[in-house]
């Protein structure tokens, strides 16, 4: 399809067309888009959750454990646990470590969830820069210019939803294809959900009469049409369209109020609160994908003492997610991917820290993802092995597993791989290199 027809097609589909990839940086590339997207309908597909461990997590302390001879072992990959402390839950290895409050945190988690968990080890991020690694992990592309996978999924499945892409941090560039939402103090949501009431709790306190409200709405619509007919600058046209498109799902925000818990979690793990808001938004039918974010993994010094508790928080967060979704009858209605900028260097530096290392791991669970599986492998010093793309077995003539392979699988899982939007953000992946990482 040539570009002109592509643009016409997306225009008819009501998508805001972007040609951003030529333009360095996060820029929308508007062309004429006089058509609004369709009125928002509540979303019933799975909730796509992307949990970012900010700073570069250490898989050798988690799902790709190496161990050592103890805290004084100068050559140890991990001084926090010995070789004998490496256990298995099904096919998944983990170190039997934890925190002061919960010494068996890792064992508890893996033993409880291994059957739903899929691990990819030896993932080559091809970078040890925070920005590029994070971008590579969540967009599938090392260079700038691609939106996050979360944004792509939201754009395809729920562009008009009021909170289609909820972000608590991490790589959340959208390249203008979809609106991104941040969450603030949820106590303020009531007034936001009811912008037409002085008192959000009392429907008798409307600012305008129903007739006046309707007249204002019609006047706004008519004004929009007049503006679109006269404003010819592409950026202005796009901004007008986006403003009015953002209003189409605003009624759905009322549902969010119903599903938010009265009191959000106060346990100290920031992921729990993020998950509560995300699940509520999903249940309200207004969110398709969410970025969860927890930082503190860039442990160049005092690695074990600082890093392991953070990993425990991630495991706690995932456990909380499973519990919450089970409680709400959504056990099979989410897809979770947990990843990071990159990994951490083998051994320790002079300050008991670990530095940046391009090889890392991701963990996944959810709808369409079989558990109790480990794909990819690293050696005792966390160097990755090449794999045969078809068999996924170690092969000297094979290739490294890279984010593009993962994203190829996830796009297919999300059912967006053939969408026209992907032609703007293609994954460069010859057929011979394609891997089935979800088999």
């Amino acid at each position: 399809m040539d570009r002109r027809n592509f643009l016409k097609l997306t225009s008819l589909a009501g998508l805001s067309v972007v040609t951003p990839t030529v333009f360095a940086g996060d820029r929308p590339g508007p062309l004429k888009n006089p058509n609004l997207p369709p009125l928002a309908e509540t979303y019933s597909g799975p909730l796509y959750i992307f949990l970012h461990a900010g700073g570069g997590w250490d898989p050798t302390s988690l799902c790709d454990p190496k161990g050592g001879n103890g805290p004084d072992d100068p050559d140890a990959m991990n001084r926090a646990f010995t070789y004998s402390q490496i256990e298995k839950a099904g096919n998944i290895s983990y170190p039997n470590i934890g925190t002061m409050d919960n010494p068996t945190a890792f064992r508890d988690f893996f033993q409880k969830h291994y059957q739903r968990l899929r691990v990819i080890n030896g993932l080559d991020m091809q970078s040890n820069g925070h920005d590029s690694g994070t971008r590579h992990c969540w967009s599938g592309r090392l260079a700038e210019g691609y939106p996050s996978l979360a944004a792509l999924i939201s754009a395809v499945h729920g562009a008009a939803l009021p909170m289609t892409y909820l972000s608590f941090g991490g790589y959340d560039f959208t390249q203008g294809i979809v609106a991104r939402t941040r969450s603030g103090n949820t106590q303020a949501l009531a007034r936001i959900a009811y912008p037409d009431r002085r008192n959000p709790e009392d429907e008798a306190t409307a600012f305008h009469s129903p007739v006046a409200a309707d007249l204002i709405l019609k006047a706004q619509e008519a004004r929009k049409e007049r503006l679109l007919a006269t404003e010819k600058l592409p950026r202005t046209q796009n901004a007008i369209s986006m403003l009015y498109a953002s209003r189409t799902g605003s009624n759905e925000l009322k549902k969010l109020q119903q599903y938010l818990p009265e009191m959000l979690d106060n346990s100290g793990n920031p992921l729990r609160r993020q998950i509560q808001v995300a699940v509520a938004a999903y249940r309200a039918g207004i969110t398709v994908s969410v970025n969860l974010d927890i930082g503190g993994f860039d442990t160049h010094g005092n690695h074990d003492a600082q890093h392991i508790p953070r990993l425990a928080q991630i495991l706690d967060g995932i456990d909380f997610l499973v519990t919450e979704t089970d409680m709400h009858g959504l056990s099979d209605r989410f897809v979770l991917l947990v990843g990071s900028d990159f990994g951490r260097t083998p051994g320790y530096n002079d300050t008991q820290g670990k530095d940046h290392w391009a090889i890392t791991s991701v963990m996944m669970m959810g709808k369409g993802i079989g558990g109790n599986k480990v794909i990819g492998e690293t050696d005792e010093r966390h160097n990755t092995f090449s794999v045969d793309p078809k068999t996924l077995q170690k092969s000297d003539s094979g290739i490294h597993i890279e984010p593009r392979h993962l994203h190829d699988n996830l796009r297919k899982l999300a059912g967006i791989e053939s969408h026209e939007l992907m032609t703007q953000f293609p994954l460069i992946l010859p057929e011979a290199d394609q891997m089935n990482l979800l088999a």
Partner: protein
Amino acid sequence: MKRSHPTRTSGLVTRAALLALTGAGMGLGLSACSDNSDGECVPTDVFFREKVWAPTLAAKCQSCHVSTGAAKHTKFVLTPSQVPGYLEANMKLVQDLARYDVDGTPLILAKPSQRSNNGPVEHGGGLVLDAGTQEYSDLAALLDRFNNPVACEGQVNLGNYFNEVELLDEVGTLRKATLALAGRLPTPEEVEAVRGFGIAELDPVLDGIMKEDEFIDRIGEIYNDVFLTDRYIGGNEAVALLNPEKYPNAYWFEGLEDDQQREEARWYTNTSVAREAINLVKYIVQNDRDYREIITADYMVFTPYSAIAYGASVSFKDKTDWTELQPGKLDGYPHAGVLTMPMWLNRFPTTPTNRNRHRARMIFKFFLATDILRLGERPIDPTSIKTVNPTMNNPNCTVCHVELDPVAGALQNFQANDNGDYQPLAETEQMTWYTDMRLPGFGDQTLPEGQESASEQWLAQQLIKDPRFAQAAVGIVWKGLLGTDPLGEPFDAAQPGYEEALKAFEVQDRVIKGIAKKFEESGYNLKVVFREIIKTDYFRAKNLRQDVEESRALELKDLGTAQYLPPEQLGRKIEAVTGYPWRYNLQDQDLLLNENEYRIFYGGIDSDSIVTRITEPNGIMANIALRMSNEMACWATARDFAKDPSDRLLFPYVETSFVPQDENGFAVPAVDDAIRANIQHLYDHVLGEHYDIGDPEISEAYNLFFQIWEDGKKGLQAGTYTADPPCRAENDWWTGNPIPEERRITQDNDYTVRAWMGVLAYMLSDYRFLHE
């Protein structure tokens, strides 16, 4: 990335000329044109880019002649394209090398062609440029241009790029500028000072606006988006970062007995310390000082409160005015602007293994508009790095570290601990900089011996000499005013739309470089940058005069006054237009600025974990804007009608008793005229749109008013509506004093208050109000 653009190259001179704007570094006189066709003169920097850089240097030389390439030890080391100003740097490099020759043949021609006038010449890279080729001829022509400049050097002409673009007139530009700079609407006097006099006449009016406190506060906002030091506002966050041994008075306010005084002093002190870097920028701009002092200042800027915390001896006009800024010095402290400020250093911390590299990266980013990480943005396989000390020796690493590490070393006196404290390296256990790192310095300059204890000051002096410094400042202000970063150069020639993107970049790049030059010539007065950006077509672009084809639309995609206002600017606009802030009580914080209310939801930042703004509306932001339009329309309508007509901002031409039809249903022409006149005024005042009284837009808004009123009238008669308006005005909101009874708005017996509320809500929710 290799580019191959035969069509572009030939199209260079048939496309309307994009002539050199700066001629920076050339300093050439005029002579006859050369290398032109179709009568178009091609300036040397355009010629260099199109005919030498792309087909020859980038395509054939760059693989070896870079800092990590095989020829890295030669004199000919090219600057990569990820570095801003790379073209100018590389052209200068070629010009410098043009002085050398081999038996009468310029070295830069002899080497790649392996030929001189007298025979063969050795070249490590072999034959890369045959003497008979077009590329060779073009390179030779470039050398000739250095000695014989063309007539069009230094001229300003952006060709036909803005041909179809309709611009805001002087009044429209002034309105937009005043809102952007000071968060208010222009006064009638300011409007008349510019109306019809041409855009250049904005200068004195803009200068006047930039003397206001609100503009200085805006400077603080713009620079906090860069430095993010507002992270430390709140509680004792900033004060707690000060070394208690060096600054024993940091918590001086704890000694105040009165609770309210103590809390007030705590807040003023902590905020003053948190904002010390931003306050330096404000002080520089407010006093028309040289902007380079942002990193060269041999002083800090204090408020009366931070001076106490630091124990600094500073004189103030009013010691109770926490906003007063005065310079001062800390004893024995080698001040170098923000580079040596504890808050800035803490915001961008270091560790024993990081060794100031993070700070160095930020220095490149903020003051040289260079993202060091982009230099390394290509797939690498760090696990294959077996080299000893890879940051020194492995090309995968040195591509970034060769630039970064010397600057990191030049910050050597602020890396010993967590407080951002000054501790001369020579007085620490370490004593000297790491021997497994590059020598402290900048570029090809090494920190001179004897200057180690003040290396940061030396570094600052090198940074300001770099041509990127001025451009970086323009880039910061550009984003502050336009809401977007300057365009980056497109890098992927294979992508659709590349040509259009490149043209868009080239034009904007010239504009920005031109402003940078004026900035330098002004003595680095940052206000010049604001003025010049405001007068550009980028700021003033309003519409296109005609439809354009897709390719042209792509070129123009970044034009347009379509910035979705961030919370701070929208909040100021609301108050400027309605006369009231969007908050429930006088002592409250604005709802859009309050992190517990709408600030984060509306795309704002907290300078801590949320550091990038959302610039496009989502459903939450849309609802907040709708709520604002309803709430402000409700409050402001009642309050405005409660004022004397001569004091009203919104409804100067009507009264609540002005109904468009009498009791018998006949139109009242005088009232009709007044209503339309007021609507005309509202469009002008609220949206900056000017319509004749007969314009359809006026009629649309009139119809809205009329229909709401008509329905209201029927409802009142039928008893389905009451006469109680949703908002009343009985006391002056600002003072709390009762409004004279005859003017109070407590009843809406004619339903006109609610009809006007509807019209105002319609306008406050409009695209034009929410964007600038």
